[in-house]
């Protein structure tokens, strides 16, 4: 795998961090480089990914949906079937195992919707470690169930009441904790964001998704898919899907949350509507005002509600290797209902953004073509949100 020099993807990425964190970041990078190709480490991680998390995940041909649309064949990469119900466990197992090898006794993490927090709590429980999770106060209310799940898994949840009280503030607070307890604490970051080496490390741990897609499609079609699609918030499931395929001929599309529409200011479409800036230790596209103040975001899916994006996505946007589109809340609800009814699969609202795009692409493509969509998580957590939306918009 390519390793970015100085942690840079073109001009993006890097390490914009308080000096206190430099030794910790350097220690992390050194250990990551040491263990990522270590046979024993890889074997242990593979074991947990297979026997604990449930890898490999199936690549499911969505026959009913594909035939109804009448275009390309749509395949779903079923990350929703993983333990915990989302792709997040790929990364938390990798990092928790690394933290253990580094002899770190205390794990901290941030979470938005709670999926990464739950996946951290699970990985830490399985590996016999203790985790503390920072979560925006607003999110602890929106996603109460995940707070209970984390508590039951033996993990302390700290509600964050500063700023917009959502994911970006949870990251700020986790970084502040790390600065304070830098000597014994491992920060288990959940998306492909933050200072180097996090974006590359999270990408590598999530690349199992794209690598499996490659070999599964080879068995089915003897080639890579014509199109691959994944949703992008911070962008971890997307980078894991895309990265192993960037050197292929596949068309690659990332889908951001357009919320109430790109012109409404009520969205989280960082790459589609943002500008370059520095946040959370990285140079990347951001949603910000003219003065460089980071603005608040909106998405029907809490997991995409983030004003930044992984720096490698910023690089793929500018180099035009990946196209970044967006889906509005209403398109997402339609996609959610369509997949649920046609295939009996309830997708997470995050993943429903990718489904919405897949439906659009399939309509315009030939029956001989294939589309792979990463179904990053299951939608059980979103039922209430969907019900509320339907009630409000009288679609029942």
């Amino acid at each position, binding site marked *: 795998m390519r390793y970015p020099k*100085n942690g840079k993807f073109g001009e993006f990425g*890097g*390490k*914009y*961090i*308080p*000096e*206190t964190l*430099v*030794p910790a970041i350097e220690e992390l990078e050194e250990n990551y480089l040491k263990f990522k190709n270590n046979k024993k480490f890889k074997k242990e991680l593979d074991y947990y990914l297979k026997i604990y998390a449930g890898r490999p995940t199936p690549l499911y041909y969505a026959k009913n949906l594909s035939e109804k649309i009448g275009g390309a064949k749509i395949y779903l990469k079923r990350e929703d079937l993983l333990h915990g119900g989302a792709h997040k466990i790929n990364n938390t197992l990798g990092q928790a195992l690394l933290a253990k090898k580094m002899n770190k006794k205390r794990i901290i993490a941030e979470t938005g919707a709670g999926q990464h927090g739950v996946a951290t709590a699970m990985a830490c429980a399985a590996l016999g470690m203790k985790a503390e999770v920072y979560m925006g106060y607003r999110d602890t209310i929106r996603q109460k169930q995940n707070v209970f799940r984390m508590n039951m898994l033996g993990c302390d949840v700290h509600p964050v009441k*500063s*700023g917009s009280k959502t994911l*970006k*503030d949870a*990251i*700020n607070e986790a*970084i*502040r904790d790390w*600065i*304070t*307890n*830098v*000597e014994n604490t491992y920060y288990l970051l959940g998306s492909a964001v933050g200072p180097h080496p996090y974006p590359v490390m999270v990408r590598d741990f999530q690349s199992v998704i794209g690598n499996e897609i490659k070999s599964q499609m080879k068995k089915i079609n003897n080639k890579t898919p014509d199109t691959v699609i994944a949703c992008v918030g911070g962008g971890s499931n997307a980078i894991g899907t895309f990265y192993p395929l960037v050197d292929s001929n596949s068309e690659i599309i990332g889908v951001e949350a357009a919320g109430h529409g790109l012109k409404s200011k009520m969205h989280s479409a960082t790459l589609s509507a943002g*500008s*370059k*800036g*520095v*946040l*959370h*230790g990285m*140079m990347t596209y*951001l949603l*910000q005002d*003219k*003065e*460089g*103040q*980071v*603005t608040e975001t909106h998405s029907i899916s809490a997991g995409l509600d983030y004003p930044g994006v992984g720096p490698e996505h910023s690089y793929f946007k500018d180099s035009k290797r990946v196209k970044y589109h967006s889906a509005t809340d209403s398109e997402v609800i339609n996609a959610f209902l369509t997949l649920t009814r046609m295939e009996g699969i309830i997708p997470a609202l995050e993943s429903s953004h990718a489904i919405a795009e897949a439906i659009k692409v399939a309509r315009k493509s030939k029956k001989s073509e294939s589309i792979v969509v990463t179904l990053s998580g299951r939608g059980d957590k979103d039922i209430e949100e969907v019900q509320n939306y339907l009630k409000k918009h009288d679609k029942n």
Partner: protein
Amino acid sequence: MTRIKEKFAELNAKNEKALISYVMVGFPNEKSTISAVRGLVKGGIDIIELGFPFSDPLADGPVIQNASTISLEKGTKIKKFFALVKKIRKETDIPLILMTYTNILYSKGYAKFISEAKKAGIDGFILPDMSIEESREYLLAAKNNADTIFLISPNTTKARIEKIAKASTGFLYLVAVFGTTGVKSGIKKYSLDAIKNVKKLTKNKIPVGIGFGVSTPEDVKKYVKAGADAVIVGSAYLKLIDKTPQNQLESKIASFTKNLKKQTII
């Protein structure tokens, strides 16, 4: 010679150390910032850091976070800030340092921001999330224009301290404790050791200032005794501003400053 360098030379001649204060502009409003600055000058402050708010101040503790949020809510903008600096410049020749986060400068363009700030009367910059690795463009824009004050920490390695000291002008900012700004945990031995270590490594080529968690005359005294060339007090000032009525602000800040300043005269 910049105002900051002149100030250290002047203090050195008098056998004094520098007292540096931090105030967040627009907290709780612009009028109180003016009064606070007047009080600081009256009280004998040597250098003033003006904080410009950022939406995501990840190196700051609760006091500065709160001041940041309020300042933004009150409508603090870059243009207004430069106008305020000009106003302060008419009253005093004291060195003024802008402390904010990298994105505020980056989003306007380093060169453009720095030259406008300089025109308004800013002498130097402190950016807690600007690492030496990412600083090329920033340093280029500031060269011969304004001082670039970098931070180091008690856990910074020898090689890095030397590298960072080379890129710093004005002074070197030593973070006293592992933690964010305003955390009060008493003076640690490792902080005092860090001063001695950094002073030794930098061989008096650049003054060393210490800050984070410094709030009392006793704190200032201990750090001066350990060899610091400057002591920086931030959150304690914001707390005082927060609880003092506007009409008493100038005098309260002046007397608080006098008590701190006494400890820097050896």
